[in-house]
């Protein structure tokens, strides 16, 4: 898909325009400027884009020795990995459900409580990762409020076979094979990966490990044939499966009652794409993307073998889409697109198979009014079968102030559709004593319970709640870049996001036995704002340095109003004295670090085949959860301490680059916080061998 639009003239136009500013572009700087597709759905050089874009190259991932997507993303400026039912991505202070994750431009599905588990994605065949920050719903629709991460996989450029094996702490073994074949008009590739780990345990005194052993397989294939200069057909497919042990305690410390079982995750997608270039002025594509995600889990009591729990979750996603680019003058071009999404979910916690569909159309106009200006405007209209319709406009512009300084600004609207869980969940937790019903089910289910005489009190009339609306954001990004020398580049970006209609659960009714019935409503308004600064400097031919920092401030607007009205209090846990909260006590939203930073040094001696690097990542203190009963972040005991992780890797090639030996250490300082961050193991040492034939 990356090369889908390569043929378009617009690229040449932009490159020539860019070169006008930097005539004597050195090789070094050209390396800093990559072609990206995610920001505009057409290939553009990063340097001309009027919105903040980060590109992570294959070379960088190789030198870091990264295996999974979470490892790569956690080292990037302004990104944090947060844990809630899996490891998800926090961008500009947004929770993981507000960032769209794409593989070759197509969305990955299968989120648990909004989190898409990033470790599901192997990075062994990734050409580059493109991260667009800021609202991107104008092109991508739902979920793209905070931004988009697009994983661009390799396209075969020559016949090549590569194999690698890596072994490390916690008996973690990764085996990868990457085969590529190319003949004049036809190419194909096959990527195979097996990853397994024995996990680890922070609390050996209890039954079950902190991270249970698991193994997974990734199989990804691509094939492409160029019929003529006009037509090109490609087919890509991916399959992922993971099996994990489940061992956990259902009893208490006094009376143990362990249960044990298996969990399985399967994730597959297929995407045939037909590309065409009708003339010098038109090009486009038609695709039919299909994806499935399925989980199965069951566990039994070890004492008597009876079933403790059995569940499944089955999601499907089908999306036909067309896109057309019309280049009607050197200064104007327009991208049009339209499509349809058909989604379904069937699961233990749903009454029946539920379906929804979205029809959408988008347009984007790119205008180069003068040599120094680059303006992009666009919008997308989504019409959904359940929650209604949504229009998401966006405008962005870049102005080249001097050859060394460019300024950019963008503003746009993002949205996230209510998900299946919020619409259709029918879940009764007897052990903890509550029920959660989706908004499309709650009226019927409460009526049924009323007929049965099980409802004690209706606290909120579900008829009055109405249908859920999409969660919406209005976002602004202002910044620029400064290239003081050919070897140095600074980027700065100020951002402000105002999000409204955030969907939260609320008690709707109470059963006669006192158990609460929850459903969802559009309730909260929050904001996130801050600044991100990033710099890279090529110290010499062999050494490059980079550093980044993000300041992030967040808050719940109604909580701030209540604090200003003197309606939120806190109780000292020792003296039990209650005091009124002041604005300065309020720490904003949970899980957001006010300060995050990183510093990296990369060394590469091409002649001798050596690479080495050292990366320090700082994640500042953040709120973990309420402890003093007022539900907001205010007390020092509610924070997790900030921490530094230090990662290092070194490699040496042999036999003219055919063989590469690499060693590394992640989390060299052996930082752990078992209670707050259980998914963070201590220091991990590893070594790998990479072999390739061309």
């Amino acid at each position: 898909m990356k090369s889908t639009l390569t043929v378009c003239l617009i690229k040449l136009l932009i490159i020539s325009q860019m070169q006008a500013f930097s005539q004597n572009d050195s090789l070094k700087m050209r390396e800093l400027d990559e072609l990206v597709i995610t920001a505009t759905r057409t290939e553009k050089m990063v340097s001309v884009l009027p919105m903040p874009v980060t590109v992570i190259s294959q070379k960088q991932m190789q030198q870091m020795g990264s295996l999974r997507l979470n490892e790569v993303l956690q080292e990037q400026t302004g990104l944090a990995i947060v844990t809630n039912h899996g490891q998800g991505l926090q961008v500009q202070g947004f929770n993981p459900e507000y960032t769209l994750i794409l593989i070759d431009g197509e969305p990955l599905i299968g989120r648990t409580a909004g989190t898409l588990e990033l470790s599901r994605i192997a990075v062994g065949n990734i050409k580059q990762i493109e991260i667009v920050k800021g609202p991107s719903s104008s092109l991508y629709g739902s979920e793209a409020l905070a931004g988009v991460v697009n994983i661009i996989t390799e396209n075969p450029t020559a016949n090549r076979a590569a194999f690698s094996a890596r072994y490390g702490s916690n008996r973690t073994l990764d085996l990868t094979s990457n085969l590529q074949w190319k003949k004049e008009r036809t190419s194909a590739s096959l990527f195979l990966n097996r990853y397994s780990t024995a996990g680890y345990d922070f609390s050996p005194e209890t039954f079950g490990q902190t991270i249970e052993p698991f193994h997974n397989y990734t199989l990804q294939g691509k094939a492409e044939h160029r019929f003529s200069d006009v037509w090109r057909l490609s087919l890509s497919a991916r399959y992922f499966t993971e099996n994990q042990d489940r061992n956990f305690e259902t009893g208490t410390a006094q009376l143990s009652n362990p249960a044990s079982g298996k969990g399985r995750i399967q994730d597959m997608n297929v995407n045939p794409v037909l590309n065409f270039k009708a003339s010098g002025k038109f090009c486009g594509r038609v695709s039919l993307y299909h994806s499935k995600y399925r989980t199965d889990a069951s566990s039994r009591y070890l004492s008597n073998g009876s079933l403790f729990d059995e569940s499944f979750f089955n999601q499907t996603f089908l999306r036909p889409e067309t896109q057309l680019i019309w280049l009607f003058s050197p200064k104007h071009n327009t991208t049009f697109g339209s499509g349809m999404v058909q989604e379904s979910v069937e699961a233990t916690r749903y009454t029946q198979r539920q379906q929804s569909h979205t029809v959408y159309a988008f347009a984007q106009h790119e205008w180069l009014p003068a040599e120094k200006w680059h303006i992009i405007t666009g919008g997308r209209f989504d019409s959904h079968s359940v929650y209604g319709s949504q229009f998401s406009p966006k405008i962005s512009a870049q102005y080249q102030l001097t050859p060394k300084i460019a300024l950019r600004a963008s503003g746009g609207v993002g949205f996230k559709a209510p998900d299946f869980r919020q619409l259709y969940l029918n879940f009764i937790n007897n052990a903890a004593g509550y029920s959660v019903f989706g908004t499309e089910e709650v009226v019927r289910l409460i009526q049924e319970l009323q007929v049965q005489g099980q409802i004690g009190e209706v606290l909120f009339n579900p008829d009055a709640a109405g249908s859920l609306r999409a969660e919406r954001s209005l976002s602004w990004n202002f910044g620029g870049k400064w290239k003081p020398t050919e070897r140095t580049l600074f980027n700065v970006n100020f951002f402000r996001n105002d999000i409204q209609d955030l969907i939260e659960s609320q008690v709707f009714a109470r059963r006669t036995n006192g158990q609460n019935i929850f459903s969802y409503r559009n309730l909260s308004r929050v904001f996130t704002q801050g600044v991100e600064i990033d710099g890279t400097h090529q110290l010499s031919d062999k050494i490059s340095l980079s550093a980044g920092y993000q300041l992030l401030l967040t808050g719940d607007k109604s909580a701030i109003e209540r604090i200003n009205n003197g309606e939120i209090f806190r109780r000292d846990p020792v003296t039990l004295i209650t005091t009124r909260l002041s604005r300065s006590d309020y720490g904003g939203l949970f899980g957001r670090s006010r300060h995050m930073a990183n510093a990296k040094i990369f060394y590469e001696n091409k002649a001798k085949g050596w690479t080495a690097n050292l990366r320090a990542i700082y994640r500042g203190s953040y709120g973990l959860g309420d402890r003093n009963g007022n539900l907001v972040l205010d007390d020092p005991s509610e924070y997790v301490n900030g921490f530094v992780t230090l990662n290092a890797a070194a490699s040496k090639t042999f036999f003219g680059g055919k063989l590469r030996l690499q060693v590394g250490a992640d989390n060299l300082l052996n930082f752990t916080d078992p209670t707050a961050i259980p998914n963070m193991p201590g220091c991990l040492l590893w070594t790998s061998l990479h072999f390739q034939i061309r």
Partner: protein
Amino acid sequence: MKNFAVLLASAVLLLPALTSCKDDNVSPVQTVVTETVRDLAADPVRIDPATGRPLGGTNRFTLYSLRENRIVANSDSATNKWDIGFRGTMLIVNGGAIRSGQGGAYISTGLFDELKEIPATAEFRTDQSPTSLAIPNASGQGWYNYNTQTHLITPIPGRVIVLRTGDGKFAKMEILSYYRGAPATPTQTSEARYYTFRFSFQPDGSRRF
């Protein structure tokens, strides 16, 4: 001029009333004291690990008299001798369709010490049925928040339970802890259903503290 005379006459007539009012004000402030009750057992139980259901409880409320500052026997439940009852997170008052006393309650947002007088407009709720109580027994709606991650009950800071007692007097109370010994950082192993609270009881029937 005529208006002025009327005003002056009213002022003179009202003067004794105002001063007597002031006297009333002073004396109760001296007599109303704030008491703290620690670790009042509210039908403590242990949880059956197999079913998640409570075991060993009596299912009875611990009835309390604020005037006497002591527990009232359950045999007196049909009298107006008690003011508030505790069982698990459920609080009952001695007033309403299912009670015999004149009690009632409502939850006020603010600091305990700042509540100097119960407004005349205050609406006291009563216990109408076991599921419709004066003090709602639900997370965030009454006196506590339940944390679904830690499974802990935390009294919401800044919530004052304003009470009309079984015999129609007024009181205010603030719940401080739900765990035995009021630990600074309760955990899931802390012994639940032990109330620590403080209250002020106004014996003279006025609404001032």
